[in-house]
């Protein structure tokens, strides 16, 4: 066991972890932040996407020990300070960007990373950026629409609701 310390959603946290403890296990099981989901556990589905020092990463493919000293943001850290939904989260609700919701935490984190890099992405850029996030319900149309809407663009011409 070794001690790790990091900042998660603005709060300093620490814990004792084994070498093979994945970051997602530390977040979910030690910190009880279960918003970050484990879908495939093989770094393909993206349900566990979080931000490490402001960059998206798959928390199932990183050890907790590698995050020592890092600044981590999970979906629990995405809402506004008053508890209301962030622009991206609200857009997912408004445009039905989820059905079962399992992939949604990862989708929201990836969307936030995209809009930080590219505030006004095209539809093609959104789809390309979502390559590492799999959704088996929606067919992606409304996810793309939600992200476009969150970027402040007119989405009336994109796909059907």
């Amino acid at each position, binding site marked *: 066991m070794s001690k790790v310390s990091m900042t998660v959603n603005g709060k300093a946290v620490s814990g004792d972890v084994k070498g*093979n403890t994945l970051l997602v296990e530390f977040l979910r099981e030690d910190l009880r932040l279960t918003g970050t989901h484990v879908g495939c556990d093989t770094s393909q589905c993206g349900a566990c996407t979080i931000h490490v020092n402001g960059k998206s990463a798959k928390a199932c493919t990183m050890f907790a020990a590698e995050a020592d000293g890092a600044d981590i943001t999970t979906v629990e850290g995405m809402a506004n300070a008053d508890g209301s939904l962030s622009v991206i989260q609200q857009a997912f609700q408004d445009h039905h960007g989820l059905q079962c919701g399992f992939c949604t935490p990862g989708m929201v984190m990836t969307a936030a990373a995209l809009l930080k890099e590219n505030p006004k992405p095209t539809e093609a850029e959104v789809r390309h950026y979502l390559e590492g996030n799999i959704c088996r319900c929606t067919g992606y149309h409304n996810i793309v629409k939600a992200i476009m809407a969150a970027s402040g663009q007119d989405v009336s011409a994109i796909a059907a609701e």
Partner: protein
Amino acid sequence: MYNFDVVRPTSVDEALSALSQEDAQALGGGQTLIPTLKQRLAMPTTLVSLSGIDSMKGVSVDGGVITVGGATPHAVVAGEVADAFPALAHLAGNIGDPAVRNRGTIGGSLANNDPSACYPSAALATGATIVTNAREIAADDYFQGMFTTALDEGEIITSVKLPVPEKAAYIKFEQPASRFSLVGIFLAKYADGVRVAVTGASNNGVFRWAEAEAALSADFSVAAVEGLSAPSGDDMISDLHGSGDYRAHLVKALTKKAVAQAS
């Protein structure tokens, strides 16, 4: 996963000392190694993470040579060389997906030498120099077959030096599920000749297509490639995604495309 210790040295010397322990293994970005560990295909006692070594991170451009630190993630390379070497930026910016590109590193990719990985083709086509803690290895001597390199036990890739070509292109025919290249062609044109490196195709890992290099060095045109026979598919990877002959066909088709797109 079996258990192991993870150590995070902050200097190359500390990392070498940690790697000298029995069954210690270097950990780059972990985007291949961690899934491998989950399948219990490797059983190190200690993982030596290279992600805390600042001297192994970053990109610099100097006198026509780009130097990339061994622990530099793909996303950083994609951003830093967009103007200086667009073909390399294109390659780095299309590995895996955005989250993978924020973790995976050039040193990890080259040390693993997956036969379908993108980076080995760039290193081989540019005649890059693989710089380790101990020596400098020419790309032509470095790649020694599928998952096999010239690296010794415990040797670390500290940086990679890539000469910037006059013209270059990377054309990746993507296997859509894994996003590895089914076949990828890195074409690089220098004053003294053209180099064509092929990834994804051969059972022996990345290789140079000598006939195409000779033809293109004499006449840099699509027609020069058109006149060649595709390389033999006999020793190429044959799997459910494509036969060896199909991959051989792609080698020629994608090389033509690379010549047409080279800039």
